[in-house]
Structure formats: structure tokens, C-alpha cells
């Protein structure tokens, strides 16, 4: 019994040499996961900035004009962003949507099992026995992430198209080119406020849930656990939802917090 061979499964120990097909397949899966996560993170960062800059309208048209001016001078930041965000937007859609099951009965089954666990909370009393009864929210969150994702895909594509057209051309009007408070307000006043509200709330919900999922998937074993991630993303969601609604109201000329007269700073011809 002194010579027990443990080399029963030597095929499992590999290393070096040419990468196998399985390795390449695994690398593709990793890259797809990273692309969907990183593009989501970049888009979330962009939306954070975008909504804050949009929110400057709350402090008067003058400040908005100053911000809009510096978005195009000296560098055409708005044009660069519209173009690059457009690309990121579609790349994110392609890679993130690969997780949505294609068949309807699969989606129904996923919902069924998730909601069954969620609703079980109400069908149990608070346990006195040693079994933990955790609250299950993530299925609902995931379903809403998919729904808001679809809304963002439709409304966001339209918004991107409109903005790109707007900042690259004069849209047939001599004074309507580029970013100005007048154009932004006229878009909102012409009835597009509905689109901006739906898009704004959906995009914020989508990114808050997305950030929560990213945190839970990648760093939940650190001090930044699931509870912290949920708390932070809830704060992000409400802050930006309120900012978004207020921003749309400000663009429609219905709300101004404080008028900051900074028009003199503007060196616009």
C-alpha cells in the first residue's frame, strides 16, 4: 500500500503550448462578460455626468448656456460623446442582451421560479427555526432591468439620433445648430418631455440595477457586500430620478431653483 498512484487523471493537468479550442471558447465568454460590464460601467458614468450637466438648467438658462458652450469649445466634446456613446450603446446592447433567454417559455420559467421565491416571504411566518428566510428581490430587479433596457434601447436610440442630428447640422434652421438652451427647451416643450421623462427614469433605473448587479457579481465577497451595494444603488436611483424629473421640468421652463447670472462669462458671438 506504499505506492498509491494518484496520477489517475493526468489529462486534467495541462499548461503551456498552443491554446486549445476549449480555452479559446472560455476566453470568448470572459471577454463577452467583460465587454457587457465595462460598457455598462462607462455608459453609467456618462449618464451620471450627462444628467448633472442637464440639471444645470435648474440654476437658470445662463448657467446652462455656459455649460453648453464649453461642451463645444475649444474641443467638440458633445460631438465626440454623441458619436462614441452611440457606439458604446449598441455594443452594450449586443453583449448585455445575450443573457436574456430567447424563448418565451424560458423567460416565463425564470420569472416563475424567481417570483415564487420572492412571494414565499409572504407565505411563511418569520421563522423561529434555524432556517434563514432571506428577502429575494433580484428576480424583480432583473425583470425591470430587461424592461427598462428595452425602453432605453427604443427611446435612447431616438434621442441619440435627434441629438446627433442636432449637433452636427442646423436642422434646416439657421440658428438651431449646436447645444443651446433654446433648442433643448423647444424640444421639451414640443411634447418630447414625455420621451425624456420615460427615458430618464428608465435609464436611471437600468443603470442603478446594473451597477448593483456588477457589484454583487464581482466584489460581493469584499467589505462592499450585497447590502452596501443595494443601499448605494438605491441612493443613486432616487437622486438621479429626482434630478431627471426636475431637469425636464426646468427645461420646460416650469422650474428654476436659483437663477445664477453667469451670462457675462459667455463669449459667444
Amino acid at each position, binding site marked *: *500500500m*506504499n*505506492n*498509491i*498512484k*494518484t*496520477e489517475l*487523471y*493526468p489529462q*486534467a*493537468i*495541462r*499548461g503551456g503550448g498552443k*491554446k*486549445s479550442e*476549449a*480555452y479559446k*471558447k*472560455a*476566453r470568448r*465568454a*470572459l471577454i463577452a*462578460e*467583460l465587454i457587457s460590464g465595462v460598457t455598462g460601467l462607462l455608459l453609467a458614468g456618462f449618464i451620471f455626468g450627462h444628467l448633472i450637466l442637464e440639471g444645470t438648467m435648474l440654476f437658470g438658462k445662463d448657467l446652462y448656456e455656459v455649460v453648453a458652450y464649453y461642451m463645444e469649445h475649444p474641443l467638440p466634446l458633445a460631438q465626440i460623446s454623441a458619436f462614441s456613446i452611440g457606439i458604446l450603446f449598441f455594443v452594450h446592447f449586443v453583449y448585455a442582451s445575450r*443573457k436574456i*433567454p430567447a424563448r418565451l417559455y*424560458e423567460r416565463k*420559467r*425564470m420569472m416563475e*421560479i*424567481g417570483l*415564487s*421565491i420572492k*412571494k*414565499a416571504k409572504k*407565505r*411563511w*411566518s*418569520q*421563522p*423561529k*427555526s*434555524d*432556517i*434563514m*428566510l*432571506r*428577502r*429575494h428581490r*433580484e*428576480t424583480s430587479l*432583473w425583470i425591470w432591468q430587461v424592461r427598462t433596457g428595452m425602453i432605453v434601447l427604443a427611446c435612447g436610440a431616438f434621442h441619440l439620433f435627434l441629438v446627433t442630428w442636432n449637433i452636427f447640422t442646423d436642422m434646416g434652421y439657421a440658428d438651431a445648430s449646436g447645444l443651446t438652451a433654446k433648442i433643448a427647451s423647444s424640444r421639451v416643450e414640443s411634447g418630447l418631455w414625455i420621451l425624456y421623462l420615460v427615458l430618464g427614469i428608465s435609464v436611471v433605473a437600468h443603470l442603478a440595477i446594473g451597477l448593483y*448587479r456588477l457589484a*454583487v*457579481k*464581482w*466584489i*460581493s*465577497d469584499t467589505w462592499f457586500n*450585497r447590502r452596501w451595494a443595494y443601499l448605494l444603488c438605491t441612493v443613486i436611483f432616487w437622486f438621479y430620478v429626482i434630478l431627471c424629473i426636475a431637469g425636464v421640468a426646468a427645461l420646460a421652463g416650469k422650474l428654476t431653483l436659483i437663477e445664477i447670472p453667469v451670462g457675462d462669462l459667455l463669449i459667444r458671438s
Partner: protein
Amino acid sequence: MGRTLTFKIFRYNPYDDGSKPHIQEYTLEETPRLNLFNALNKIRDEQDPTLMFDFVCRAGICGSCAMMINGRPTLACRTLTSDLPGTIELYPLPFFKMLGDLSVDTGVWFREMAQRVESWIHAGKEFDPNAEETRMDNKTAVAIYNTERCIECGCCIAGCATANVRSDFMGAAGLNRIARFMIDPRDERGHETWFELVSTDEGVFGCIGMMGCDDVCPKDIPLLDTLAFIRRRMTAGS
């Protein structure tokens, strides 16, 4: 004294052509500290000897008695009826092969999973029984122990949205098993081997993060932490 409990139990025998899936009701007087293990045995002994369900250890160790209890996959032996309302709905675990009524075959799936992930220490060195055991630091030992607490009840698989629609998905139990050997310094499998095994849509990147596994695990194994660890390990090593 106690309540009268109503049990609505899913009945179906796949091996009987005449059997149709249906819900059968039983009533039982609740006694103090009654758990579902005792309740089901009482129903079988006193009311219906044909009722099929699995139990072995009645102490949350064997993992046989997992079932859907009021919509949630968990262990029947660790569930007190006092934690449940007067009406208790019992279904077998989804995903696994059904044997009859509340009994499912988790064993075949777990054996296949163990073979697939090669659930044993891969060591190329010849074993010397006279040599001193290799030392392991406490942190590693605790981490391994945490993953090894899995009793293979199948609740995480039954509660996993992805596994419910994709039978080739390893599920939290499979990934937890992989993590156990990944942590173990005695296992000599290199990064490439792990990478091919786990960094796939059937492995960790098939998970969509609904976290059903972590929410229902009756042993409170930190499955979410394990999955995060595997994801980072796969990314860092590549």
C-alpha cells in the same frame, strides 16, 4: 390545542401510466415543535401509505428532504410547521428528475456534476504515507470548509433561474465545488484547466445574477462570495 394544518401536496407517479399530476389535501393536528419531517411521516403512517418523499438524517445533513415549501426550495426536516401558515403547499424540487410525489433524484445530477468538474484533488506527486502531512494555513482551511459544508440538497439549483431553463448550467453547487478545489493548494490543476472548465456560459459566465441560490441555501453557504471569487480569479489569471 394546536392549529389544524392543511397540506396541499403535489401527487404524481411518473412510473404509473394512470397517474395524473394533481394536488391532494391532507389535514393534521399541529403539535408543539412539529417539523415537516414528522408531519409528512405522520400523514404517511396514518392517512396515506402511498405518499412518496425522501428523508434520511432528519437533521439537515443528508440533503434528501429538499422540496418546494410554500414556493421556496428548502429542507423539510429543518422547517417547523409553526413557521408556516395553516395551509402548507408542498411541491417537488424543479429541475431534477422526478421519482414520484415529493421525491426527486438529485444524486444523478450531482454525480454527473462531480465527474464534470473532476471533483477530486489532482496531484501528480506520488503519495508517501510516511511523510508528514503538508501544512495548511487556517484561513485556507476555513475557506475550504465553508465550501464543503454543501450537503447537495439541490435547493440552489432548484432556485436558480438559469439552471431552470438550461440543463447544462453548472449552477451554484457546481461552481462551489470548483471553488473548493481552486482554493486547495494541494490541487495542482493550473489556471488553464480551471479557465476552460469554469469561464464558460455553462460555468460562471452563464450566471445572470438573480441570486436565487444565495437566498435559498439552507446551509447559508456564501455562494455569492464564491461566485465573485471565481469571476475575479478567472479574469485576473487570463
